[in-house]
């Protein structure tokens, strides 16, 4: 993964340059039919009528789009794109803005020919079509997915400048599918099976070994996201959903499940997605994303005015529910309890708010959360004290936003 902090200037790319880029990309797309997608929505901001009550409006359309005045977008960087949390509200991430992490791009898959093979230590090796899976009893769950590399820039720097750069590798959706346990029961898992290999249909044929016992009652084979079929970037037509576990285990474009007695030690669970400790050993199979929170507004790159400011943010835990969020305006010396918005679901983003009055003096805003196990989100200093600065993954420390006297907000490590 590239460091999102390096190219911050591209966020505010000028309109003329943006359009020029779009035109160049169009030319490229014609030249190379292999280029599958273009930068979306290069349209001009429309001229709105002075009084919309005096002009007939637009007619209904088959598939809606957001207002042409809105510009929030993901920040693509190679095989990742980051969700613009500074622009979002509530807990559901719009599907078009859900973060991406691919290991060799987004495959183009015809759902009519996609199959899921379940084999290995099962009584009956089976093949299921997408339609078969949709006929099983369905389950829905609102859950976050967080890349284990989310906030990786905050270990050692250079730090991200915006919340999109520091915390953009996480999103929340309502996922619908069939319970993994339902499908496995159909195949008859043999009692000695303890691990499952999940494999994607992308050109990395992405694989992770999953221990069966901890996830058997929660895992979902998901075919829908926020009420419609999965987005291609999210694994269309089928992905594994392991609520609360690091993003890459939620295998996208799922094509195969193999039951076995030991992990396969794939590249993605040995040389990658392992956490190097100061003593030179590396932690492996660190699946759970621990409790974490971040203030999304005010956040890096924004500017506030004196007076009332609603501090808004997200809190989540891979171990269950968030039970408490506290906010500090003085860099962690004093804390006050924030409001949690309903719904506050387990293994899901929870929105918090805190009513604040900014007097115009320098301040450092922080949030820290506690989950239902009693785990309290650590400070950056405490986290690095235990794990060093070379873990890459699973950074969940308190985030600090400095408010300067001119109201500008920036990322600081305190």
């Amino acid at each position, binding site marked *: 993964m590239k460091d999102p902090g390096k190219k911050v200037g591209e966020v505010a790319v000028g309109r003329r340059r943006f359009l020029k880029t779009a035109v160049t990309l169009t030319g490229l797309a014609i030249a190379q039919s292999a280029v599958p997608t273009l930068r979306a929505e290069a349209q001009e901001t429309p001229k709105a009528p002075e009084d919309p009550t005096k002009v007939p409006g637009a007619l209904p359309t088959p598939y809606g789009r957001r207002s042409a005045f809105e510009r929030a977008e993901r920040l693509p960087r190679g095989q990742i794109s980051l969700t613009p949390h500074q622009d979002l509200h509530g807990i559901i991430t719009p599907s078009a803005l859900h973060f991406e992490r691919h290991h060799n791009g987004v495959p183009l898959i015809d759902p009519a020919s996609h199959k899921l*093979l379940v084999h290995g230590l099962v009584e009956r090796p089976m*093949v*299921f079509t997408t339609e078969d899976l949709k006929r099983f009893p369905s389950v829905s769950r609102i859950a976050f997915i967080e890349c284990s590399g989310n906030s990786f820039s905050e270990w050692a720097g250079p730090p991200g400048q915006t919340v999109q750069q520091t915390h953009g590798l996480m999103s929340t959706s309502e996922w619908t599918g069939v319970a993994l*346990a*339902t499908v496995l029961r159909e195949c008859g898992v043999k009692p000695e099976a303890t691990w499952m290999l999940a494999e994607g249909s992308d050109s990395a*044929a992405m694989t992770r070994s999953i221990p069966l016992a901890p996830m058997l009652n929660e895992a979902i084979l998901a075919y829908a996201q926020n009420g419609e079929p999965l987005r291609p970037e999210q694994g269309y037509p089928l992905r594994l959903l392991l609520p609360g576990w690091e993003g890459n285990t939620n295998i996208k474009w799922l094509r195969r499940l193999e039951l076995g007695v030991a992990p396969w030690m794939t*590249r993605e669970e*040995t*040389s990658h997605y392992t956490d190097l400790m100061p003593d030179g050993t590396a*932690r492996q199979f660190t699946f759970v994303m621990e409790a974490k929170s971040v203030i999304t507004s005010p956040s890096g790159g924004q500017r506030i005015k004196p007076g009332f400011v609603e501090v808004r943010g997200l809190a989540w835990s891979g171990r269950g529910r968030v039970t408490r969020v506290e906010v500090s305006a003085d860099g962690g010396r004093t804390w006050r309890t924030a409001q949690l918005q309903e719904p506050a679901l387990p293994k899901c983003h929870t929105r918090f708010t805190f009513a604040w009055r900014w007097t115009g003096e320098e301040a450092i805003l922080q949030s820290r959360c506690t989950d239902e196990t009693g785990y309290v989100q650590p400070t950056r200093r405490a986290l690095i004290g235990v794990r060093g600065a070379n873990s890459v993954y699973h950074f969940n420390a308190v985030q600090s936003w400095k408010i300067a006297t001119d109201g500008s907000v920036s990322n600081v490590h305190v």
Partner: protein
Amino acid sequence: MVAIGLACLAPWSVAAEQDKATFYDLGRPASEAEIKAMDIDVAPIGAGLPPGSGTVHRGRQVFAAKCAACHGPSAIEGPADRLAGGHGTLKTPKPLKTVGSYWPYATTLYDYIYRAMPFNAPQSLTPDEVYAVVAWLLYRNEIIPEDAVMDAHTLPAVQMPNRNGFVPDQRPDLPK
């Protein structure tokens, strides 16, 4: 959620359906041929390794033709992941995680190179080519001698330098 689903089924089906092999009669049996076509994984004990073999010499040629453009002529120049060197760096402020310094299992090389490499043409290498590239990378990292041959028997027996460098998840690991 699963428990709720089963409970809803209980009044009308569980008792009657218990003897049946499947509950919903959805999907179809997988044939041996289609399992074989999709089952490309290789485990540390060597399960899944196909027939074939490769030498260091042949691996040097395949690497130059199909891998060097991204990984560099001697696998350390990049721009893609550096694949050799880094011994003794894992405890330092600038750790270099390579095949030789970090990867715990040699079988992972076969699995990954076949499934995902070359990046622009994954699953295009023959088993002999994959064995050869694996042999060359292990030789480059001074793990096997230049005359070694990698195949389904020799590869799982290769001891990687960082084989014991991994520990299970130890969290929560911070004092409350």
